[in-house]
């Protein structure tokens, strides 16, 4: 019987903070001994092994008993949870958006089997979710221990909230934009490879030198647009920043489009490998015609989006005033 109690106390001790373990176990030993004596007095006989086991079970699982002595009673508490959930939703939506967009792009433009794409996208999606949710949980568990978000909750003011008149984009629209932007950055810096861009065994397709000259400006534009998309999503009340970014990205974007348009054609160089030269020339013409239309379309769309965003912001400001 004593052996069972010692085993129980040993199990509790293993889960206790080391510095306090001896003291707490000594007190628990006395508590259990008192409880045992109380029952033995009532029964007028020693407790059987089963009765001792029942008494210990009634006292509580060793991990639960020990956990009550810990300062930290939860991983992410009720004060931090709303912020954790808010960030988690954004991260999950972006991951789902990036993985699905990559899968669709591979299906539309690659020459892989649809089932293989589906299986790989599914696997990659779960792996990304597991890793990111895990990392995010660890970050917020640390924030919980450091006292976040007390400071943020103390500092916020109602004026920071978006005006009711602000026409906020839907969560899915915002997530799609952020995901598309992340995807574009990853592609631009070469971390993901789209199968149709390099050619195949019959020809090689490469971007014109102008793209190498504009590498950093285009990367900077994509990065700033990502910040703009995130601000539109999570900080709709930051009108000045959003307005500045909208104007800046539209102007810089249109400038880059103009530089690109003037530099070409060709914007893509096709080199035949196992293809007749005439066929390669026809392909190059088709691709460059497509790129010409694409560059003009991007210019028009960006102009329209920039005007639209500014109009929304100006309208919102008038309504708020």
């Amino acid at each position, binding site marked *: 019987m004593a052996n069972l109690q010692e085993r129980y106390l040993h199990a509790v001790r293993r889960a206790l903070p080391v510095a*306090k373990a001896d003291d*707490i176990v*000594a*007190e*628990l030993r*006395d*508590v259990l*001994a*008192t*409880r045992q004596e109380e029952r033995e007095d009532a029964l007028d006989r020693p407790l059987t092994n089963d009765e001792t086991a029942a008494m210990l079970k009634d*006292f*509580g699982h060793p991990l*639960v*008993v020990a956990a*009550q*002595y810990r300062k930290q009673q939860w991983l992410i508490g009720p004060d931090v949870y709303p912020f954790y959930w808010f960030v988690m939703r954004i991260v999950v939506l972006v991951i789902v958006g990036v993985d699905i967009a990559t899968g669709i792009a591979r299906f539309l433009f690659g020459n892989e089997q649809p089932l293989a794409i589906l299986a790989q996208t599914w696997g990659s999606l779960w792996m990304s979710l597991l890793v990111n949710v895990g990392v995010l949980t660890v970050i917020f568990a640390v924030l919980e221990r450091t006292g976040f978000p007390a400071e943020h909750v103390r500092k916020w003011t109602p004026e920071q909230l978006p005006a009711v008149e602000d026409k906020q984009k839907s969560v899915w629209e915002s997530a799609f934009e952020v995901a598309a932007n992340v995807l574009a950055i990853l592609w631009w810096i070469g971390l993901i490879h789209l199968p149709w861009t390099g050619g195949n065994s019959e020809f090689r397709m490469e971007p014109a030198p102008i793209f190498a000259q504009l590498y950093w400006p285009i990367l900077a534009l994509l990065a700033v647009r990502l910040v703009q998309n995130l601000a539109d999503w999570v900080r709709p009340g930051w009108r000045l920043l959003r307005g500045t970014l909208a104007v800046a990205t539209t102007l810089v974007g249109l400038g880059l489009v103009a530089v690109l348009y003037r530099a070409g054609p060709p914007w893509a160089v096709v080199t035949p490998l196992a293809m007749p030269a005439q066929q390669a020339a026809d392909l190059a013409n088709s691709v460059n015609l497509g790129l010409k239309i694409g560059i003009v379309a991007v210019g028009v769309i960006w102009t329209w989006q920039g005007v639209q965003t500014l109009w929304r912001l100006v309208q919102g400001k008038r309504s708020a005033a």
Partner: protein
Amino acid sequence: MPIEDDLFEKLRVELRRGSLILAVLGALRVERYGYTLRQSLEDAGLPIEESALYPLLRRLEAQGLLTSEWREEAKRNKRFYRLSADGEAILAQLLGEWNAISDSILRLTEGK
């Protein structure tokens, strides 16, 4: 019906959680060790699980509201707890708050 019982139990536990601290502080105006403290709470109609009581005593001691010392009694070493000076001040404040809440609840539930 079981759902209602379950809900009542949850609400009851929430309601008791804060008041148990007050009861423990009040009972420790007289020096007691865990077992006798638990007995006095039970006799007063406020039973508390041992697995909850002892960690609570540690927390209150860490907050400076209780003092404790090991002493031998009935041939065994026992840890005796007692309200500290800070604990007495906090208890007086909490009792004032408790009475104010009680009065408010009575006014809200009895008045027409």
